[in-house]
């Protein structure tokens, strides 16, 4: 057991063991207001659209959430370390077209195709992470650059037309469901759960928050900052590829533009879910809620017959709302931090910081 040096201990009021309560539940669920908002939307939706709560519609909604949700989980990890990944859209397109191309209708090609696509996703993430760390170019630009490169490759590969063919088994999985729940939704749940567990229970998860909160503090605590960053981007690339695969299960061919919009949508979902763009706060729990809100809103608008054009406008409004809410998050964090700093102000100057 640990050495206990007998010495005059200061009066201890209560031992920590007895004080200990559960860790804040919001690390798992995201902010409380998010779920209230979701509830509100669901209630309003069921009033507006008659068949909103029908089993078939439920399936639709869940289905919508799958690709966006999977991508958004990956994006959360990257945003937590104060980065961003704008290459996810291109990665999804890549995953979709490559999968269809390799499968070419033959079920026997499916395992190979999936393997290749996942490897490609990992590779993309790795390249992103390495370039960002090595060149100190902002993540925004790097991932835009890699997105351009990937898109170019995809277009070359497919000659910018629909490409390849799914195997029957893929279509079965894609359209299949257990009761009202699509098969692939379980995949999403699995991924989200795994991400939550990693985020809240693993050392890596602690490191994510540390690096996002303050690189300096993380470094001086012995965290390997560069490794954490690379893993985050690799995970994001990987999950984008998974999302592309999941999406492909319901498509008739590979489309080179299939990923369009997923970059901004995933960021919107993450921000809506309460994760700060400056890093270090929030998490996957909130993202799940954000994805749910966005998907339900899309669904409601479809049911209500809102034109797809108007839906784009609504999406923009949601983004603006999300970003306003985010100000509350970051402002609270900033006030916290500033109080801390000013109260324990630098006592001695005397030196010009080197």
């Amino acid at each position, binding site marked *: 057991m640990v050495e206990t040096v007998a010495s005059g201990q200061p009066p201890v009021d209560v031992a920590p063991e007895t004080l200990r309560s559960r860790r804040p539940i919001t690390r798992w669920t995201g902010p409380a207001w998010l779920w209230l908002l979701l509830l509100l939307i669901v209630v309003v939706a069921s009033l507006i659209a008659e068949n909103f709560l029908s089993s078939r519609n439920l399936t639709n909604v869940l289905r919508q959430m799958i690709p966006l949700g999977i991508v958004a989980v990956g994006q959360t990890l990257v945003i937590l370390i104060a980065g961003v990944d704008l290459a996810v859209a291109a990665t999804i397109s890549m995953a979709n077209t490559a999968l269809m191309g390799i499968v070419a209708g033959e079920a026997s090609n499916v395992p190979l195709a999936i393997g290749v696509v996942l490897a490609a996703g990992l590779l993309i993430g790795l390249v992103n992470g390495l*370039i960002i760390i090595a*060149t100190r170019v902002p993540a925004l*630009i790097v991932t835009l*650059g890699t997105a351009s490169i990937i898109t170019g490759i995809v277009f070359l590969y497919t000659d910018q037309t629909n490409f390849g063919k799914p195997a029957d088994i893929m279509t079965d999985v894609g359209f299949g469901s257990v009761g009202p729940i699509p098969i692939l939704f379980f995949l999403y749940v699995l991924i989200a759960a795994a991400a939550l567990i990693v985020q809240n229970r693993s050392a890596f998860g602690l490191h994510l928050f540390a690096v996002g909160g303050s690189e300096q503090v993380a470094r001086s605590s012995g965290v390997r900052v560069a490794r954490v960053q690379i893993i985050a981007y690799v995970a994001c690339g990987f999950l984008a590829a998974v999302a592309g695969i999941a999406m492909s299960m319901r498509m008739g061919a590979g489309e080179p533009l299939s990923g369009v919009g997923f970059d901004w949508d995933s960021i919107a979902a993450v921000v809506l879910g309460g994760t700060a763009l400056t890093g270090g706060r929030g998490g996957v729990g909130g993202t799940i809620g954000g994805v749910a809100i966005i998907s339900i809103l899309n669904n409601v608008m479809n049911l209500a017959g809102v034109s797809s*054009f108007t839906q784009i*406008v609504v999406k923009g*409004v949601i983004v603006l709302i999300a970003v306003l809410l985010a100000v509350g998050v970051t402002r609270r964090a900033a006030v916290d931090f500033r109080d801390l700093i000013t109260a324990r102000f630098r006592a001695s100057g005397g030196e010009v910081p080197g």
Partner: protein
Amino acid sequence: MTAASEAETRPALWFSLVRTHWSVFGPWAILLALVVISTLISSGFLTTTNLVNILRQAAPLMIVALGQTLVILVGGIDVSVGALIATTTVIGGSLMRDSDAMILPTVLVVIGVGVVVGLVHYLFIVRIGTDALVTTLGTMLILSGLNLIYTGGAPRSNVTVLFRKLSDGRLLGIPIIVIVALFVAGVLAFGLRRSTFGRRLYAVGSNREAARLAGIRTHRVEGRAYVACSVLAVVAGLALLARIGTGDTAAGTGMELDSIAAVLIGGTAFGGGRGRAEGTVAGVLILTVLFNIFNLMGISRFAHLIVKGVVVIIGVALYSTRKRGDRA
């Protein structure tokens, strides 16, 4: 100063000298290299027709990128410019009603729209403090959606011949649109260097708090940058409209990213406070020459995308110094 500290400063000074000058001359060096390579690759490159073509291609992007320069200089970003360009063509295309008399009112209306968008950005980003990237993403979506709703997917084209002269016409052999772009570049280059607004812009971009305590009304400066960026995007939209002659909801797609790339390749630092309009001009030309040479060589547009991605990353890496507080 002791010998030890002198030795410390001497190499440090060297580096900072090289670094400052590189970020000024670097883009032009790259451009020169590109031009040389292009001449070697293709005989059709160095002809007057081609060069004029390049400039004409570059003009709308140049105007947008110059606006983006202002915003990036002040520490922000604006990804809605592409959508705003589309909005300009769409509204312009339908308002003009084939009547020369309507040109001026149309121009005023679209500029008004640009000002409104800029003010929305000011409200959210500068006054409330929302994140610039995501906020302009939001306005981009709203504008895109509105474009589609307004045209119902079928844009009108009522652009008059006179207006199209903006693109087709020439003055002393130079396309008018190029003159406009160079004029804007000149105004910005001069203004950033010599005007009070320019000085304030650099100060706010470099250190907002210090500028504020020194008496600069930082909100106004930032607001003006955003409004100017939107207005210049509108101008670029008008230029595009003159060239294509019709409203197009897809006009300007990708120009937001291209403009950002051009600004950064041109040596302006993300996070603000450093950079020049001239650099942006070089950045725009680099991207356009790249596009042009690919065309001349008959290489597919797709390969161009790939090379562009690589060029952007390398170009920015060459003189990107991330300031503290930037996104990783």
